[in-house]
């Protein structure tokens, strides 16, 4: 072997051992390990202040009160305040809320006041005609309440704070922190005051490390940190990929004569074609407010589909417009939701933490409800965390082991107690072990409910709208969710887009915003309250900057400029004839549609500077 090769070999060995040393002594991922970040320690850290995250925090504190223990809980939320990034229909099934607060009905300030009193279901055959269908099965809402989920979350946030939960809003979780053993030990919050070119501004403030023994990720659908965890721990090993839909929503204030409090309307058909899964909703809320929106499955094929314009068009249908005629639009927003159901639920726990809520994906698609599931998952993980951190889980595991051994041992009984397995002391420090969460979720009504509806959504994708509706009827009333087969999701959403050459472009030339019922995008964005400090690096990153021109535009005609509900992506032709993708990150509504639908998965959504994003108040 020549001297040169020896040198190279020793060089690479040195590099290897250096990396091991690095990973051994620095407890953070390389980008933050060399920076002197301040660390704040908690017992439990919850990333995301939505229904799942807040339910988990509240449950832990309730158990602490009940059993006289003390566990510090911190909820970190990237929105300016709790609720500002929450968007949902929402007709709330209060099953989980009843478990969390049995007395919620007697709270004077609880924003859950309007019971659903009338269900209507329409098939919109064209832009002007419709057929009424029976609102049965999952579309029957007796016992549920029409709410604004942002308001409910704000109320939950106050309850959490009064129980002693530390709620930190306006701070984004940027990176997951791992220890030398590969367990999750917390998150790093984003740096503040970085200029567009990456330099530090006058107002620069380094992010901090939030360290905890148990870190729960409740970021909602397609959470950025949750997705990185799913990859790292291969949590989807025995599950299918997740499938998604994009929901666009507005809340209007309407004249009293139009307002029919308690009315719940669902529609299918127009404006989406029969090959595209989609449907609309109109809910009459409290105080003369009407929430309405359109949900479009992101497995749609036509790359020219413009989600915003489809939503605006849908509002002009006679069945819809009569609800908002003469009113004023108060707020606009958009968010993606999970449609994968049971088949797509990943493994939930990993060393030091777990995924809950829509980050895992518990939404019941036929009911279009995920809040009660998210809250229940929060309650279950709260119980698991409490048991892990107080040693109850270790004690229970030791007891189970003792019983198991006794069954295996001979008939001669040993003196009482002498054969008991002593629980290890490992639960007292280090990352918490939440593996009992999987079993808890399996045994709960989350899995029972999702199991009964698991085939309905995949069937729409396979059969189209009308056969899909028929199948849903059969599945609900004939098989009652117990069919012996489970449909698979086949190709993921981003692979379903067909090239421009194979499609007929959808024409939007007849659509012009009339400022009375339909809005133009700038006005809609203004009403979402969305804002980001413009002088920061774009939080929408491209893995390969050449792909938009070569693939997205050349093959698909730039679908991101059409499906993004905030007009973030624009293609501009430059002087040399080439197409340049302009990313107006400042408009972003944090819906995550681009992260999901980009055909080569080139666009990666990351958290922007904390506090930015939409400002939902009644969504």
């Amino acid at each position: 072997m020549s001297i040169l090769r020896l040198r190279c070999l020793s060089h690479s060995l040195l590099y290897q051992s250096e990396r091991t040393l690095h990973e051994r002594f620095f407890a953070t991922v390389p980008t933050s390990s060399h920076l002197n970040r301040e660390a704040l320690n908690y017992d439990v850290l919850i990333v995301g202040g939505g229904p799942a995250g807040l339910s988990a925090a509240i449950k832990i504190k309730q158990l602490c009160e009940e059993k006289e223990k003390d566990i510090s809980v911190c909820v970190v939320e990237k929105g300016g305040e709790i609720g500002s990034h929450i968007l949902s229909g929402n007709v709330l099934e209060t099953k989980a809320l009843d478990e969390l607060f049995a007395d919620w009905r007697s709270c004077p300030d609880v924003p859950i006041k309007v019971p659903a009193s009338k269900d209507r279901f329409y098939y919109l055959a064209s832009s002007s005609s419709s057929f009424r269908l029976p609102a049965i099965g999952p579309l029957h809402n007796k016992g549920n309440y029409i709410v604004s989920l942002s308001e409910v979350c704000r109320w939950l946030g106050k309850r959490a704070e009064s129980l002693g939960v530390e709620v930190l809003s306006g701070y984004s979780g940027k990176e997951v922190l791992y220890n030398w053993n590969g367990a999750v030990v917390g998150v790093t919050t984003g740096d503040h005051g970085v200029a567009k070119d990456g330099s530090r501004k006058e107002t620069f403030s380094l992010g901090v490390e939030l360290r905890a023994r148990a870190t729960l990720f409740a970021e909602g659908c397609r959470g950025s940190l949750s997705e990185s965890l799913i990859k790292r721990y291969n949590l989807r090993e025995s599950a299918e990929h997740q499938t998604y839909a994009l929901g666009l929503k507005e809340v209007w204030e309407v004249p009293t004569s139009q307002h029919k409090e308690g009315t719940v309307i669902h529609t299918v058909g127009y404006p989406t074609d029969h090959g595209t899964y989609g449907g609309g909703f109109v809910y009459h809320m409290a105080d003369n407010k009407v929430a309405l929106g359109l949900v479009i499955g992101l497995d749609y094929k036509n790359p020219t589909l413009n989600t915003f314009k489809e939503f605006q068009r849908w509002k002009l249908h006679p069945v819809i417009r009569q609800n908002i005629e003469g009113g004023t639009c108060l707020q606009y927003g958009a968010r993606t939701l999970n449609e994968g159901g049971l088949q797509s639920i990943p493994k939930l726990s990993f060393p030091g933490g777990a995924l809950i809520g829509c980050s895992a994906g518990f939404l019941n698609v036929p009911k279009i409800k995920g809040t009660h599931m998210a809250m229940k998952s929060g309650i279950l993980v709260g119980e698991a965390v409490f048991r892990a951190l107080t040693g109850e889980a270790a004690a229970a595991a030791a007891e189970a082991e003792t019983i198991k051994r006794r069954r295996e041992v001979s008939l001669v009984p040993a003196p009482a107690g002498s054969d008991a397995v002593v629980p290890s002391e490992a639960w007292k420090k280090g990352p918490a072990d939440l593996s009992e969460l999987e079993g808890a979720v399996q045994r709960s009504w989350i899995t029972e409910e999702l199991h009964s509806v698991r085939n309905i959504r995949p069937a729409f994708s396979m059969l189209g709208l009308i056969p899909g509706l028929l199948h849903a009827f059969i599945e609900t009333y004939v098989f009652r969710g117990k069919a012996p087969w489970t449909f698979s999701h086949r190709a993921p959403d981003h692979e379903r887009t067909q090239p421009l050459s194979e499609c007929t472009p959808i024409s939007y030339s007849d659509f012009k915003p009339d400022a009375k019922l339909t809005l133009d995008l700038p006005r809609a964005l203004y009403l979402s309250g969305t804002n980001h400090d413009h002088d920061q690096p774009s939080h929408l990153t491209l893995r390969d900057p050449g792909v938009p021109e070569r693939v997205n535009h050349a093959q698909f005609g730039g679908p991101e400029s059409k499906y993004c509900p905030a007009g973030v992506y624009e293609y501009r032709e430059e002087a040399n004839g080439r197409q340049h993708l302009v990313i107006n990150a400042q408009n972003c509504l944090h819906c995550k549609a681009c992260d999901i639908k980009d055909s080569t998965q080139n666009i990666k959504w990351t958290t922007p500077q904390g506090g930015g994003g939409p400002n939902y108040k009644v969504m």
Partner: protein
Amino acid sequence: MKILVAVKRVIDYAVPVRVKADKSGVEALLPKMSMNPFCEIALEEAVRLKEKKFVSEILAITLGPAGVQDVLRHALGLGADRALHVVSEQELQPLAVARLLAAVAKRESVGLALLGKQAIDDDSNQTGQMLAALLDWPQATFASKVEIDTSVPSKMRAVVTREVDGGLQTLSMELPAVITADLRLNTPRFVSLPNAIKAKKRQIEQLSPDSLGVEIVPQLRTVEVNAPPLRNAGTRVSNVAELVERLHNEARVL
């Protein structure tokens, strides 16, 4: 030297607003409240003066009902030493605010009062000036640069550059004085997470207008609030002669 910084809780600058149906005022479509941007700039300047060792203690003060306390948490997070809340359920107009601030300034023996030039909800631009008159202190409004001159230790002076219509004016005045901050004075720092957490646990001192000996009597009554008239679309003119003719006859500006 103690500094008094008055901060006001207003509707966040980025939130869309509309005129109320009864024309009595304005309501936010998404009522997100935060500290008035000019007050934040004033507070940042106070913190910088403290870092330069001119100031020993920063008193942040706000006035209003119970709900306004979160703006004091923000002030504590930014670097204020003490937070005072003058509790009042009544509407507080600039003169009442100036009287209350004057009472506090005298009681606390404050050496400098830093305010924002105006609040973004009423745009009054009066409180700082009225405060100076009530205390009989010199004032420098629309400050874009503040320096403290300690060449004569017993008589500290402030040298303030003001933004006026004609350009920049520099004034020198003896302390105590009132300075109101304009946009270009500085860029406020971000409240880091550890500071925000510490601020949540700090005490806020509560005061009542009675204990300060001030009676709140509203002097102004809002009669009507209207949205500005919609702008007409512009029209193109074909030549200069037509432009002059239309400016003379239609717009009546020539």
